[in-house]
């Protein structure tokens, strides 16, 4: 597994900030401006390969300078101080232009401009999200554990959301099998929700990775969990839904994964739900009969995840002239 260190560029030296730190600070400064859309900030910064230009333009555009009473340099210095404080707390901070940023998150339209992490970063190209209800049946728990254990034993990273129920079962089984697990959480990285999972969160940070798209001290809100599901879908090569009713975060994630072009895997027993039967008709949805079938399907899906330049050139023979 290819691993990367925490994404720090050393402590900031205000005034003599290096280019990467200036870019990262500009992204934080953009997010601090009033009335900004976070995914729009991320998209424009990635599209341009630059955050300093968009920051200057935004300050020019809406006269934000006057209301904020701060120069671009002052905003950058303040953002750099935030970055230094977070890193001093042991938090990894990865902005969408950083090499350490999980690149698969740039695939999705809810791309987070910055992610905060505790634990060990890895490319996690072979990563599968295992999600489901917070009120599972014993059968659901057992299915989640079996899937997570088999994925972990096959060297696949088990991604989940650190919620009660299926998420907890999946993370725990992956850890017990000695595999890698990643928790994409719906609060800031300094918080735990539910509180009862604080210890599990700590263990995942020690043995795997905890990742959050929210400011480090952000509390959970009604919208933070579905936003987290979008990022979880983006982080993983595919999403497996284990037990989920019509109104559930897991079903939300299945919808988001399809919106992103990430495959969704549904165990056949889930087709007792109308929503699951409807989803089963859509492109990118795979219904599996058992764990062997699931593993085989997931292997194939992770394989096609990132087509390289040779794949692009390979299209030449498709054109009829």
């Amino acid at each position: 597994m290819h691993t990367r260190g925490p994404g720090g560029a050393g402590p900031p030296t205000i005034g003599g900030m290096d280019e990467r730190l200036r870019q990262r600070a500009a992204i934080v400064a953009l997010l601090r401006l009033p009335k900004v859309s976070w995914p729009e900030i991320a998209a424009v910064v990635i599209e341009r390969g630059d955050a300093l230009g968009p920051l200057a333009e935004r300050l020019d555009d809406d006269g934000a300078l006057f209301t904020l009473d701060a120069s671009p340099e002052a905003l950058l210095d303040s953002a750099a101080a935030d970055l230094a404080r977070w890193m001093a707390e042991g938090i990894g901070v990865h902005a969408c232009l950083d090499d350490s940023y999980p690149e698969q998150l740039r695939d999705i339209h809810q791309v987070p401009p910055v992610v905060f992490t505790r634990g060990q970063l890895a490319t996690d190209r072979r990563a599968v999200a295992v999600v489901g209800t917070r009120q599972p049946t014993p059968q659901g728990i057992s299915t989640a554990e079996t899937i997570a254990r088999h994925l972990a034993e096959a060297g696949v990273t088990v991604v989940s959301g650190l919620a009660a129920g299926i998420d907890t079962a999946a993370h725990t089984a992956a850890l017990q099998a000695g595999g890698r697990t990643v928790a994409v959480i719906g609060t800031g990285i300094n918080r735990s929700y539910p509180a009862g999972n604080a210890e599990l969160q700590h263990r995942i940070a020690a043995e795997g990775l905890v990742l959050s798209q929210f400011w480090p001290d952000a509390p959970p809100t009604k919208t933070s969990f579905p936003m987290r599901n979008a990022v979880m879908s983006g982080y993983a090569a595919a999403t497996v839904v284990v037990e989920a009713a019509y109104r559930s975060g897991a079903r939300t994630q299945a919808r988001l994964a399809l919106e992103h072009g990430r495959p969704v895997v549904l165990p056949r027993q889930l087709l007792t739900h109308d929503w699951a039967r409807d989803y089963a008709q859509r492109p990118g949805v795979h219904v599996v009969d058992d764990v062997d079938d699931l593993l085989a399907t997931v292997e194939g899906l992770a394989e096609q995840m990132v087509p390289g330049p040779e794949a692009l050139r390979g299209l030449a023979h498709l054109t009829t002239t």
Partner: protein
Amino acid sequence: MGSPTSPPPDPNQAAQEQFNIQRNWLLNLLPPSRTVCPICRGARDPDYPRCYACNQAYRRSGGILADAVAPISYSPDDGQHYHQLRVYKSPTSPNQLAHFRLAVLYTLFYNNHRPCLQLGAGGAFTHVATVPSTRARAGIHPLQQIIQVAHSALPLIAATANPAYGNAREFARDRFHVPPFTAGPSSPRVLLLEDLWVTGARAQSMAHALKETGAAAVVVVALGRQVNHGHPPSRPLLDTARHTPFDLNRCAIDDLSF
């Protein structure tokens, strides 16, 4: 994943899969109507023959514009297609998945619609072009890579942008400079590929420059026709487009008569 002995993935199958999955968000263009612009298929005021931007380009160009415009899909500005059309061309972090998906979409679209695109041009294409970027970048633009992969036998026109216009979204006759057609066929017919059609000002300015330089015909294919999802006149358009699953066999040019 996979063991070292497993066969390499079949490129045709990978392409087909990456096309299929995009059907979750691709949206066919609506045919021209009282509320749909006959050129770009965006929303229009029924009191005018075209949408505001297409009308402006028409007046300023003296009618010397692309002969046909074929956007492949609507691209709502809160959706995945729109996102891909932005991140595939990042100069620092180009998104390979988006690039591959867009290349697949273009290639399969061209394969399916070559006869009608040629009908729009009055014959087989002799050249391909993209709209020159106003921002400097190192190396070949990812959109040029797409068009070169799909049309390796056709020369790519090396046009340049007039820096006076920056990123303005307005038609201008002298916005792009096209080098003269040399030693080629007497009636050059150009396939012009645009990634995201917002107002069409850039694509139509380029079509105009191509024709002024001697192109007999220009057909524009746009990978996406941007739609502002919060713009009230565009909402019914999106609602209607979302009623029907995406069908690659439907093409904007099919709806027009020549």
